[in-house]
């Protein structure tokens, strides 16, 4: 695993893996199958979703009702902050200063666009034919599913092959497009009356302004921190401010966080590095809350089941097509089987769906969230089966 890979997606090594002893050294051989990672074959980045989403579903109103709807509503702010943290991570990863990075970003954007287009188009056709009573505009529902499907993770590390290293960067960068388009979709879905796209785009710019304003304030604070503890407080406060302000205004904390992260990586100084290091410490509880809330918010309705299976299939086809096309169009990519590396969905799809569900609290959007959650879990399982061809380490 490369140094850059350690902080990709939700921040590299998971707390669970850190708690696990090294492979096969300290445990008796007969205990090895009990190790979650070894038993499930899960990579660090996918273990949290597989573990915490079912826990959330079990605690949620659909099962034990420990997390009641009222309790879930109290967690909205925490989820907004978690979304902001994810946005910051993506923004920090968006480093476009070298030609190679720009090429990788173009390839990632192309791959994400292909995925969004194919999945959205397929669901637009299906939902129009089904007349499914979701209570949501068919086009926006298809777009939401497409956006959630376009997020990806680089899957299981294969020993540092060239393709996997490229896929890691692509997986980071292909989140940018769904976050930005999702910011527009959030505004359009959350409006009480139909809103034209240009007006929603105007709101997107306001979200970016929030990110710039709070990000600038944070940058000034980070530079003046006298100690690491003080800086940690500043970072937590800025994160809460980004998530809280965007959530309060009904805007996307992901977009605001993305803008702030981008700003910190562009501004002079070491803001991006210190934020990345400190966020890795606070991200785990946030992500756990996000996943548990997502699981608890699931409603296993007939509509959700009908949406789930096609979503898994269409996403697989779209990811393979996107990876295939990006490899051939973008000369920077010399690796093969890029699409196969991107089958694992990661967490951003769930985060995006949860955010949309918090903006539009209808049974239809709950079905969309449930479908995305189920498809994410199925996608992780699929990534274990459809392993890319082994390559020698680069």
């Amino acid at each position, binding site marked *: 695993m490369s140094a850059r890979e350690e902080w990709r997606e939700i921040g590299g090594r998971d707390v669970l893996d850190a708690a696990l002893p090294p492979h096969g050294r300290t445990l008796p051989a007969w205990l090895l199958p009990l190790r979650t990672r070894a038993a499930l074959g899960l990579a660090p980045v996918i273990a949290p979703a597989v573990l915490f989403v079912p826990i959330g579903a079990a605690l949620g109103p659909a099962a034990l009702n420990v997390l009641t709807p009222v309790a879930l509503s109290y967690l909205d702010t925490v989820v907004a902050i978690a979304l902001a943290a994810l946005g910051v991570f993506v923004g920090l990863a968006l480093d476009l200063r070298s030609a190679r990075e720009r090429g990788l970003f173009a390839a990632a954007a192309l791959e994400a666009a292909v995925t969004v287009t194919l999945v959205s188009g*397929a669901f637009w*056709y*299906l939902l129009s*034919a*089904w*007349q*499914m*009573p*979701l*209570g*949501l*505009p068919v086009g926006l529902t298809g777009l939401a599913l497409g956006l959630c499907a376009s997020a990806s993770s680089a899957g299981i590390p294969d020993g540092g092959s060239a393709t996997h290293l490229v896929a890691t960067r692509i997986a980071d960068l292909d989140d940018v497009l769904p976050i930005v388009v999702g910011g527009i979709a959030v505004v359009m879905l959350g409006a009480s*009356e*139909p809103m034209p796209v240009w007006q929603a785009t105007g709101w997107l710019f306001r979200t970016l302004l929030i990110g710039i304003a709070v990000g600038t304030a944070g940058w000034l604070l980070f530079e003046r921190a006298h100690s690491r503890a003080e800086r940690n407080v500043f970072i937590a406060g800025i994160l809460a401010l980004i998530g809280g302000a965007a959530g309060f205004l009904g805007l996307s904390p992901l977009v605001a966080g993305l803008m702030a992260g981008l700003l910190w990586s562009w501004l002079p100084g070491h803001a991006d590095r210190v934020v990345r290091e400190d966020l890795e410490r606070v991200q785990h509880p946030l992500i756990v809350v996000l996943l548990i809330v997502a699981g608890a918010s699931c409603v296993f309705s007939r509509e959700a089941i009908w949406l789930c299976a*096609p979503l898994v*299939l*269409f996403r*697989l*086809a779209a990811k*393979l*097509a996107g*990876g*295939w096309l990006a490899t051939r169009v973008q000369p920077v990519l010399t690796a*093969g*089987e*890029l*699409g*196969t590396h991107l089958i694992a969905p990661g967490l951003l799809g769930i985060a995006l769906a949860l955010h949309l569900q918090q903006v539009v609290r209808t049974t*239809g959007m709950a079905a969309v969230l449930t479908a995305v959650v189920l498809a994410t879990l199925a996608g992780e399982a699929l990534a274990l089966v*459809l392993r890319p*061809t082994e390559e020698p380490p680069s």
Partner: protein
Amino acid sequence: MASRARPILSRETRLLAATIGVSLVVLLVLARFRFPDAATPSSGQTQPLSRLAARAAFDDLSLAVRELSSRVGGSLLVVRVTGASPGIVRAGPGARPLGAPLALAALRVRDDTAVVLLPDGAQVEAPAGLTAAASGTAAPTIPGASTVVAHDLVRGIALVRVPAAAAPVLSMRDGVEPLIAPGYVVVAEGSVAGAALRPVFVGRSDAVADPRWDTPLLTVGRGAAGDIGAPVFLLDGSFAGLLTSVEGEPALLPAQVLMAAVDQLLRGAPTATGDLGISTQALDPALMAAAGVGTGAAVAAIESGGPAESGLRLGDVVTAVNGQAVGSPDALRLRVMRTRPGTTLALTVWRDNGSATVPVTVRARTVAAVQSRPSAAGDASLGLIMRAAAGTGSEVTRVLDGSAAAQAGLRSGDEIVRIGKTAAPTAADVSAAFAQTRPGAVLFLSVRRDRQPLLVALRR
């Protein structure tokens, strides 16, 4: 040894082709299914089928209103209030000029008596100037003379004598629970042409407290904002209540509560006009900071010899009456006005950064007069130059810049009519009271400015 044949297509391409093929097949197969439920329109652009369905719903609603008209039309009347006669003066926002006719829908509660809810601020000074017209929803108005039988000044309910006619039996909505929402109710709006029934959509209905009533009223949304005073019916024909307003928002006075009040009026029970002998004012930021409480009614003046003289102090903030929260001076006034004289109210007051309960016996409403005695002097440290004001206290003739008095907002011409328990204080009284106040503490003055009582917090 023969080498393995290299496939024409790479593994990725083959996997892609297979996945796309399967996806297309699945897409085409799944598209043949139809959900049995009708699709719900989700945007402002309704589909043709949805529009047709909505038309049917509107037709159903129209039919229900028409049926309701035939059932309740005999109970509805239009009471015309003419301000030209010395009968009714309508005050408050949206006041009509004297002489402009005001048509109010009324509900017949007896063969010769109807109840009407006069809008906020309206007052009946004499039982004259009303004309009532029996009307069906389609029949033209036929004016006839009428008189006000009884009028609850606080709540605005008036019983009006109307030409006798057989009143149909109405079913009443039981209970005071919120209306079923979202849904429709039917309001009877009055006009010079008669009473007309109109459906109003109620998106949400919640209980809302009103100082005029012990029972919470029910919000009905802004759709009924123009129908204050109108009788309200449910689609099943039962009478739900009368529309009134709570802090400018329309609210339903439930039928059960209304009828209890009507019975009281019909029995001839005197309508309460209680009074505490105090003047109150709303809390501004300065008073909030001085008193240490955010809501309530600040006591600005206490009438000498009044019922509150022994219990209340200047600067007290009344926050509740009999445990019911009081948010403003108007709420306190209305709550006291509807209390029968002789009744003792438990006032919760905020005083010296603590809460206390003060029992005060309500008296019949009279015109209060603050007694005072003259004096004269000046005090430089306080920042006030005063002179004796005959019968009231001390009049401020000059306020020194930067002084405590200037910071408290006192002006030339203000009359200091009370300090603590001292009515009509002299200038020496004011200076002595200020001198005895601890540094940083607050001294409350009851001041008369432009003939209106005003509470001033003077910080030492």
